[in-house]
């Protein structure tokens, strides 16, 4: 079961990757000739001709597609049109920062969002629930640029506790991580609350109560693990969104 499952998951991942790359490859070409987009409008025809040849854009689209995959297979993603540098290198030098920031925001989102959701669900329709959910909604709704600037203003400018930018000290990551993490924590709290409420009303929770399990044990054994399934699904989307920078 599990070997088969892993194999199937890898197969799906590879298929998805191929699909995304191919669609991106062809869709970008629908928007016109890349040479004309990059060179100035008044570029000489000879210049256009030169770059078209140099970049291999004179070949058929199919041939370009194949040569892209051939190079990609050995780790060569070609050159960035914008910066004229090796694209793979550029990704490699930025990825660690992205991952560090993502990891920190994700930890924050899970560390705040999940417990807040659990607390809200266990106190359904009471003041605590309403308070937590009000915070969650505003956290989710507050735009990054506003929250980020507010945090810089308070913690970097007024109090001077934290650096406003750069990555020189370990503290540098705090403000960006809080900015990103808050929004995700808010969304995660709402999802967690919903999943918990659904899991709480499951009949097997009543049955566990009837067998004499205490309320803490019931939350840990009967409710939380069952509620985790939708939460983990949502987390998957969040990680994807963070890497791709959707927010």
């Amino acid at each position, binding site marked *: 079961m599990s070997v*088969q499952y892993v194999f199937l998951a890898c197969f799906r991942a590879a298929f998805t990757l191929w699909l995304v790359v191919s669609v991106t490859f062809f869709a970008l070409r629908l928007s016109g000739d890349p040479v004309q987009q990059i060179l100035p409008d008044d570029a000489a025809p000879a210049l256009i001709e030169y770059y078209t040849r140099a970049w291999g854009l004179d070949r058929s689209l199919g041939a370009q597609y194949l040569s892209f995959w051939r190079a990609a297979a050995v780790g060569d993603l070609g050159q960035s049109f914008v910066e004229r540098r090796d694209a793979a290198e550029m990704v490699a030098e930025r990825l660690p920062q992205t991952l560090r920031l993502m990891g920190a925001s994700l930890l924050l989102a899970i560390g705040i969002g999940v417990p807040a959701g659990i607390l809200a669900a266990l106190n359904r329709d009471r003041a605590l629930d309403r308070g937590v959910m009000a915070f969650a909604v505003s956290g989710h709704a507050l735009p990054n640029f506003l929250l980020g600037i507010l945090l810089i203003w308070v913690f970097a400018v007024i109090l001077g506790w934290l650096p406003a930018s750069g990555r020189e000290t370990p503290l540098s990551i705090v403000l960006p991580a809080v900015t990103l993490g808050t929004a995700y924590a808010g969304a995660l709290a709402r999802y967690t609350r919903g999943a918990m409420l659904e899991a709480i009303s499951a*009949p*097997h929770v009543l049955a*566990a109560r*009837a067998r*004499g*399990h205490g309320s803490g044990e019931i939350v840990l*054994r009967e409710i939380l693990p069952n509620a985790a399934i939708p939460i983990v699904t949502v987390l998957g989307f969040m990680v994807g969104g963070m890497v791709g920078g959707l927010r």
Partner: protein
Amino acid sequence: MGVTEPISTAEPMVRANALRVTFPGSVPIQAVRDVDLALFPGKILGLVGESGSGKTAVARALAGLHGPSVRVDGTITLRGAPLPCDGADTAWTPVRGARIGFVFQDAMAMLNPIRRIGESLDATLALDGSSRKERCSKARDLLSRLGFEVPDRILRSYPHELSGGMRQRVGLALALARDPDLLIADEPTTALDVLVQADVVELIRAETRRRGLACLFVSHDLGLVAGLCDRVSVMYAGRIVESGPAADVFARPAHRYTAALLSAMPELDGPVRLGQGIPGEPVSASAADDGCAFAPRCDAALSSCHSAIPALAHIGGGARVSACLNPPARQASQAPIRPELRVVGEILFRLEGVGHVFRGSRPAPWKARPELRALDGINLDLRRGECLALVGQSGSGKSTLARILTGAIQPSEGVVTFRACPVPALGSRDHLAFSRKVQIVLQSPHESFDRRLPIGVQIAEPLVIHGIGDREARRKRVLRIASEVAFGPDLLERMPADLSGGQLQRASIARALVLDPDVLICDEPVSALDLSLQGQIVSLLAEQQRARGLTILFVTHDLSVARQIGQRIAVLRHGHLLEVIPATTIYAAASHAYTRALGAAIPGRGRTTAGVASAMEVSP
């Protein structure tokens, strides 16, 4: 308060006095009113009632399972010590499970789907603090005593890997794991097939005797209770209306409600009788407070019945109590014998070599799709004017067969014809004309209707689809059909949620009949209904069959209901048609041991239930 239970040699294990359960709401609903119960060691008390009678509310009150918002008044004592009726929920924690075991109706929903049976059982045993090794051997002992031959395999299984009967035996194991004094079983076999039901019931009986437990067995099934319980209490609208030794109560009911319920019960033996329900709908405890709650449905109600609530009073030798001002005569009334209906109509449906295989989705791209054979080599005719009852356990393929007749499923093998033409597939162009002649009534009345449209609009919908009549003509036709099925015209404006199951099933039949079809296909139309309503619906269908010359295919798991409505009974097992026999003489005509077992396993029908299931080697 009121009457105390008769003096017994043993002290009661559990005693409940003046129990009241009140559910919150803008108008608080008193679901249980002044209920007194006494349960004795080694004895089973049956608590019988229809939906809304408050029987489950009593069961949950005894185990402290009502949430904090529900108010429970009265006193409950266990071995003489009071239970924390009015206390906080945490006060119940040491009582639940340890002193009181609870078995629920839906065993699948009651087990955590993501935990193996062993994990759940171990966690429950761990509450009493013992070493892992002790718990393991205790779990194995428990399961093998409950009829599992390889307990280790069960311990490693997830709930979905077990059959319904196995799951309920696991539910029983969990309830008994901590050696409670009181076992409460709330409709534990309602979701199970009759053959499996017998096994679980036998286990409950055996464990009650062996452990000297007090057992409260809650059920709507009079037959089951009659065969299993030592004493029985009958509930109606939140009150106990009659109590006594089970055999005695069922032989000579002392309350009009009990008597009416008993005569509504279809029989397996003797002459086939007409279906007979109790008029009206079961009332819940929120109904009016002035007089006997059953009086509005009672054909022998006196004027005093409507003005004062009758108190429970001793009758006979003192072993019984009843709250009836005009108790029934000694001999329970019986429904009239059904006149013989000779069917010589032409063949409407013909099935030749019909088989069907369901194919699942591929577990992996390189794997074959899993196949499940639902039907195999079915040859069957349905003649104009007859009612053919199709009987079988769940998984026998009876619903698949019904769907094939409607065109909803295209059989993978064989030919199905309606009037010598192939049955058109649902959604095809020809299906519209076909559906004018063949209509369907489904099991769950609440799920058969759109929640957002008034019932009258939905009954008229087939007319709109088929473009019959103008608005005024349709309105008249709906009114006429509603009166034919005794569906009050004032109810046509209501939303489905405001109607009871019985009313909705009438509406469902009205909707099916509004096109004046030749054939009605009914898939378990009475299984979701209370006993008092089952008879009403069965007799309504029989009436329509007679009056319109309607042809009916009636799918049911209950052989006694099949006998009550059908002229012929077709028995399905594992997708094979075992036999087709006339309804009048099941036992004489049933050549197949399975059919006899199916009948014998229906509890309390004068036949022993013991050992039937094990003898038949039932697989799900």
